[in-house]
C-alpha cells in the first residue's frame, strides 16, 4: 500500500542549496517551527559574497572540555556528536535553527497514515573509502539497532519499524508498525555508516576508525588529546575550504579562554567561565553565539514522599524561590527562567501560557498553611508530627549547582521548609533516584525538546526509563502516547502544550532555568551564519567556513 500522495518535497535549487516547495505542508508533517518561517527564504548555505574568493586551507581548531572517547554515531553527548557530524551525514539533519534539513536524502514523503516513509537518496555520494553510498547502507544502519545482540542504546528509536525495503539503490521505503513522530528528528537524523565496512569491523572497532560520507575524514585520533580530521576532497557538497578540522581537549575553562586569546584555537565549543563569556561577547575580535539550552536545570522531586506528594507544597516551593534573582546572582544572567518542561528555544512547541510562579513568599506561606503545615518552634513547618524537610543531592564537586542549591535552601528556609544538601557522584544519584530512594537532586536533564522533538515519555510518563520524579498522571501518559503517534505538527502541538500546562500546575520537579550556551569564534573564521537558534549545532557547517590568514 504505497502512500497516497506526496505531501512533502524538498528540491535542490543549486549545489548545496535547498528550497521547500510547499512550506506549509512541510510544516504540517515535519513540525518545523515558526522559527523557520521567521527566517525568511529557506536557504541553507551561507555563501561568502565578498569580492575576493575566501581563503582556502589551514587548520580550524575547536576546543572541547572532555575527551572524544568515541567517533561512532551510536555514542552520545555534544562533544562526540560534534566530531561525528564532521565525519558522517544523515538522511535528514538538524541544523543550527533546529530545522530538519535533507542531506543524504534528496527528498522524502510520508504516507497520510504515517506508516510508510519513502526517502529518495542523493546519487553519486561516496564514503571516504570511495565506495558509493546507497540504500543498502541506510537499511544496514537502521537495522543494526534492532538486533538485541548489539545492545544498542538507540533500540527504542527504531523499534516502531516493521521492515525496511530498498526498491533500488537510491530509494529507501520504511514501513512502520505504528506511526512514530519521533522518528523524524531522532531516527532519520541518525548518521549513516557504510554497510560493507561497519559489518566487517564491528561497532567497537568502528568507534576508533569510522568511515562516513561527511566533509572530513579521520586523520589522527588521540581521544584524550585531540581528534584531527582532514578535508575529504570527494565530499558530495564540495571539498571543505579548510584543510583540517581539529577538536582539541582542554578541560580547564580559563585555559580555553587564554587559548582563544593567543590564537592557538579558533573557537570554544564548550562554555567558558561566565566572566570570560561576557568579555568575549564585548570583544570585537570575536563572534559569540549566545543561545538558550534545551536541557532543563531542575531539582527532581520524589512525588511519592509524603511531605512532597501534596501539589500545594511543590507549588509553594516554586513561589518561594526568586528565580530572577537566581539567574542574576548565581548564573550572572547567563540563563533564562523556565516556564515548564520545554525550552523556549523549541519555538514551535513552547507554550508560554502556563501558570507562572513569580517570586511571592506570601503566596508560598499561604499555600503551605492551606496544606496544613504549621510552623514549629524552630521555624520549620510540621504536620502530624512530621517535619517539612527533605534532602537534595548535588553532584560531587559541582561548583555551579552547589551555590544554586544553597540559594534555594535559603529561600525555602524563609517559608519554613528545611532542605538538606548532600553530595554524591552522578552515577549514584541517577541509580538511587530511579529506585525512589532519595528525595531530590539538582541536575540538568532534558524533559522533551531535544533536537526540537517535544516527546518527554522518558521523564514524565509513569513507566518512563528516567522518571526521576516518580511522577505518574494518567492524563499525561495519554497525551504523551498520542503525541508520539501524531504526525501532524499542529495537532501535536496541542498535546504538548497541554503537557506543559499540567507540568506548570503539578510541578513534578522544581523547574528552575535553562542555561545559555556561548559558542565563541575568532573573527578569523569566515562564513559563519549571521544567527543561530541553537549554537551547539553550528559546527556541522564547518566545511563551509574558511580561515583568514
Amino acid at each position, binding site marked *: 500500500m504505497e502512500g497516497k500522495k506526496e505531501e512533502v518535497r524538498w528540491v535542490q535549487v543549486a549545489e548545496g542549496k535547498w528550497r521547500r516547495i510547499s512550506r506549509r505542508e512541510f510544516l504540517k508533517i515535519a513540525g518545523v517551527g515558526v522559527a523557520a518561517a521567521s527566517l525568511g527564504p529557506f536557504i541553507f548555505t551561507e555563501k561568502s559574497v565578498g569580492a575576493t574568493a575566501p581563503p582556502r586551507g589551514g587548520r580550524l581548531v575547536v576546543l572541547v572540555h572532555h*575527551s572524544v572517547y568515541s567517533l561512532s554515531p551510536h555514542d552520545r*553527548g555534544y562533544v562526540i556528536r560534534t566530531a561525528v557530524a564532521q565525519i558522517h551525514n544523515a538522511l535528514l539533519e538538524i541544523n543550527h535553527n533546529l530545522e530538519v534539513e535533507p542531506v543524504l536524502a534528496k527528498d522524502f514523503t510520508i504516507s497520510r497514515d504515517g506508516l510508510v516513509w519513502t526517502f529518495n537518496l542523493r546519487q553519486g555520494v561516496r564514503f571516504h573509502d570511495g565506495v558509493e553510498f546507497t540504500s543498502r547502507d541506510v537499511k544496514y544502519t537502521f537495522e543494526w539497532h534492532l538486533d*538485541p545482540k548489539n545492545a544498542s*542504546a538507540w*533500540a*527504542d528509536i527504531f523499534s516502531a519499524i516493521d521492515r525496511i525495503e530498498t526498491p533500488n539503490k537510491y530509494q529507501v521505503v520504511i514501513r512502520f508498525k505504528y506511526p512514530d513522530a519521533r522518528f523524524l528528528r531522532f531516527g532519520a537524523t541518525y548518521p549513516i555508516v557504510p554497510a560493507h565496512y561497519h559489518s566487517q569491523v564491528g561497532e567497537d572497532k568502528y568507534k576508533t576508525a569510522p568511515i562516513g560520507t561527511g566533509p572530513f575524514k579521520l586523520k589522527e585520533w588521540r581521544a584524550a588529546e585531540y581528534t584531527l580530521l582532514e578535508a575529504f576532497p570527494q565530499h558530495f557538497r564540495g571539498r571543505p575550504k579548510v584543510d583540517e578540522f581539529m577538536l582539541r581537549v582542554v578541560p580547564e575553562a580559563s*585555559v580555553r579562554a587564554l587559548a582563544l586569546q593567543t590564537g592557538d584555537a579558533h573557537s570554544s565549543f564548550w562554555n567558558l567561565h561566565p566572566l570570560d563569556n561576557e568579555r568575549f561577547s564585548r570583544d570585537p575580535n570575536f563572534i559569540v553565539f549566545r543561545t538558550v539550552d534545551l*536541557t532543563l536545570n531542575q531539582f527532581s522531586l520524589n512525588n511519592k514522599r509524603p511531605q512532597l506528594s501534596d501539589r500545594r507544597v511543590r507549588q509553594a516551593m516554586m513561589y518561594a524561590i526568586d528565580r530572577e534573582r537566581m539567574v542574576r546572582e548565581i548564573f550572572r544572567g547567563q540563563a533564562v527562567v523556565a516556564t515548564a518542561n520545554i525550552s523556549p528555544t523549541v519555538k514551535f512547541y513552547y507554550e508560554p501560557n502556563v501558570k507562572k510562579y513569580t517570586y511571592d513568599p506570601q503566596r508560598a506561606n499561604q499555600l503551605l498553611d492551606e496544606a496544613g503545615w504549621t510552623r514549629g518552634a524552630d521555624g520549620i513547618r510540621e504536620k502530624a508530627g512530621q517535619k517539612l524537610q527533605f534532602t537534595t543531592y548535588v553532584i560531587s564537586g559541582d561548583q555551579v549547582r552547589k551555590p544554586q542549591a544553597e540559594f534555594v535552601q535559603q529561600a525555602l528556609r524563609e517559608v519554613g521548609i528545611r532542605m538538606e544538601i548532600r553530595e554524591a557522584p552522578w*552515577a549514584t544519584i541517577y541509580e538511587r533516584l530511579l529506585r525512589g530512594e532519595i528525595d531530590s537532586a539538582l541536575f540538568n536533564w532534558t524533559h522533551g525538546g531535544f533536537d526540537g522533538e517535544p516527546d518527554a515519555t522518558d521523564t514524565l510518563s509513569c513507566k518512563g*526509563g528516567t522518571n526521576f520524579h516518580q511522577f505518574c498522571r494518567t492524563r499525561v501518559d495519554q497525551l504523551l502516547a498520542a503525541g508520539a503517534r501524531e504526525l501532524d505538527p499542529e495537532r501535536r502541538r496541542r498535546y504538548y502544550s497541554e503537557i506543559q500546562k499540567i507540568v506548570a500546575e503539578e510541578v513534578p520537579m522544581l523547574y528552575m532555568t535553562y542555561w545559555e550556551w556561548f559558542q565563541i569564534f575568532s573573527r578569523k573564521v569566515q562564513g559563519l551564519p549571521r544567527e543561530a537558534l541553537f549554537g551547539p549545532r553550528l559546527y556541522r557547517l564547518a566545511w563551509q567556513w574558511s580561515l583568514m590568514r
Partner: protein
Amino acid sequence: MVRYLAVRTAQGLLIIFLVSLGTFSMMHLVPGDPVSLLLGEGGVPVTKEVIENIRRHWGLDRPWYIQFFTWFGNMLRGDMGQSMVRRGEPVGKMIWEAAWVTFRLNAFSTVLAVAISLPLGVLAAVRRYTWLDYFVMTGSTLGIAMPNFWLSLILIILFAHILGLLPPFGIDSWKGWVLPVIVLASDQTALFARMMRASTLEALSQDYVRTARAKGLSARRVIYNHVVRNALLPIVTLIGYRAAYILSGTIVVETIFAIPGLGQLFTLSVLYRDYQVIQAIVLVFGVLVVVANLLTDLTYAMVDPRIRLVGVGGD
C-alpha cells in the same frame, strides 16, 4: 638477598591483590554503574528494557564478586579488558599511553627538582643564616604555599599570552613540556631543599664530621664524602614515598595543561565508573608503589652500608 627479594615480592603481590579487591568491591557497593553515563543529559529516549539489555550485554547484571574474579582471571592472562566508555581500545593500550606521559612528566620534574634542590639545600645549611639561606628558605616556603592551579595559570598568562614564547596547553613539542614540568617541580624543589637543608645541618653536627675535620680533610671533601652522603638518606625516602602521590600530584597539572596522562584518565574513569580502567590503574599504581618501596630500601643499602639486607629476611 634472594630470599629477601622473594619475601618482599610475595608480600607485594598479596598487597596488590587486596588493593584490587578493595577497590572493586567499593566501586560496586556504591549504587550506580557506567550505563547512566551513556545517556548524557537525556534527550534521545531510552526505555528501561534497552538499559537492561545494555547491562546484560556488558555483564553488569552479575554479582560484583563474579565480575571481580572474571576480571582477575583475565588479568592473570594479561588481558586488562575493555573500557566501557572508550570501547574500541584495549585498556592496556590506554593505560600504557597515559602512563608514559605521566611518567615522563614526573621524571623530568623530579630530576629538575633534585638538580636544583640538593645543591641549594646543602648551600643553605653550610651558609646558615646568610642571605642565601634566607633566600632558599623563603623561596621554598613560596614554592610549597603556591597552589599548582594558580601557578599554572600565572605561568600560562605570562609565557603564552604576554610573551608568546610557549603554547598555553598541550605537549605537541618540547615547548609544551616546559611549563607543566616547572609547576610540578616547584613544590618538590621546595620540599627537597628544606629536607636537604635540615638533614645536612644534622649531619654537620655529627661526631664523624668533627673527626673528619680534625683529621685535616678539606672542607669540600668533608661535605661531599661525609655530610652529603649521609644527608641524602631522607631525600631518597622522600622520593620513593612520593611515587605513591604521583597520581594525585599530577591531576591538576594534567587538567590545566590538557595533558592526556594517567591523572586525567583516572579522574574521568572514576566519574564515568569505568570499572575496567579504574581497576587497571589501581593495579598499575599498586605495582608502582610496591616496586618503589622495594627500590627505596635497596637504595638505602647502597647509600648507607650500615643497612644490610642479609639480616632482614625474616621481617
